């Protein structure tokens, strides 16, 4: 009896946890790729209501972006959403958005992600005047939308954690 109860309890607990993960995780909900200008993106950062917001700029055709992407997905899922949120912004051209959506789904990303809207130059310069426009690129913001860190190029999970922590300490 005890064994059966324990098994039932374990199953219920597992089901509850899975349901919670599915319902409340950052990747829950239908995938939406929302067009944003640089200014709108900063509004989204402020609206995230998190201490730090990591924004990863990527493109479906960019090999290093595709290679590092799972690391950001892992970081997004493992982070406390009140502490750290991870947003994805694709810079794909309009005709490539179906590939971007397919890639996001393949990586289990759901909910709202973003796509650069408008001309590349003003967008890139508004995000960071020093940004060459190359992807992948990543920015770390505080809850008020102030940029704390920015880098171009691919990073590993450990490098990502370290850089976000450094950004936090420097703020």
């Amino acid at each position, binding site marked *: 009896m005890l064994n059966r109860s324990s098994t039932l309890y374990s199953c219920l607990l597992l089901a509850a946890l899975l349901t919670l993960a599915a319902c409340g995780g950052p990747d829950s909900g239908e995938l939406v790729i929302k067009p944003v200008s640089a200014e709108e993106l900063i509004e989204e950062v402020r609206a995230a209501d998190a201490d730090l917001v990591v924004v990863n700029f990527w493109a479906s055709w960019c090999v290093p972006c595709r290679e590092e992407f799972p690391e950001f997905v892992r970081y997004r899922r493992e982070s406390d959403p009140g502490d750290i949120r991870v947003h994805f912004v694709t810079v794909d*051209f309009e005709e490539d958005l179906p590939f971007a959506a397919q890639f996001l789904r393949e990586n289990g990303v759901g909910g709202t992600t973003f796509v650069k809207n408008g001309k590349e130059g003003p967008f890139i310069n508004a995000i960071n005047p020093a940004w*060459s*426009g190359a992807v992948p690129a990543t920015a770390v913001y505080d809850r008020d939308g102030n940029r704390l860190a920015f880098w171009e*190029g691919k*990073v590993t999970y450990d490098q990502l954690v370290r850089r976000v922590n450094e950004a936090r300490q420097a703020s």
Partner: protein
Amino acid sequence: MTVLNTTCRTAAFMLVTWLFLQPTVAQDRQALEIGAALPTADRTMQNATGAATSFSQQKGDRGLAVVFWSNTCPWVAKYEDRVIALAREYMAAGIGFVIANANDPGAYPEEGAQAIQQHASTKGYPFPYLVDEGSEAAKAFGASRTPQVFLFDTNDRLVYEGTVDDSPSDAAQVEEEYFRDAMNQLIAGTAISVQKTKAFGCTIKFY
């Protein structure tokens, strides 16, 4: 012996510190400064047609435009028709045009000589499409993107470096034609109003 050990430990510590401080992300190469001389001018490179040529041999009476290129970069694809149209127009006005592929075909076979030949033929490029083996020209130019434009005057001095225009993704939205303006000013013999712009594009995959 103790002094030697101490020196050795100090050197090792300094080496480790130096290695630790090295950036983990590749930094952009610094592009040539305005006024710099045309690098690798006489270096022989293979054209898509199989013939050998050099930047010097491709110079026009009014100057030379070198554009770093790729067969696969979406930004290049966006600019391809615009660059072909500019080349047709300005080659007729005396500016030599070449494009160069500096990507490592060992890592990216679709950027290799055979693919270059096929690409040039399919697209009907009006300019030589050069294989920049070892990325030697790109490194000498400080190029880091495709497409990235370098425009030289008749004295082989750099007068413009950067992007083609201000709207890579949509030709209909172009407001600033930096490359065209620079060529017009070069031909007119007037000062180049915008000498450097940010070259948006794919990173060159160096050898």
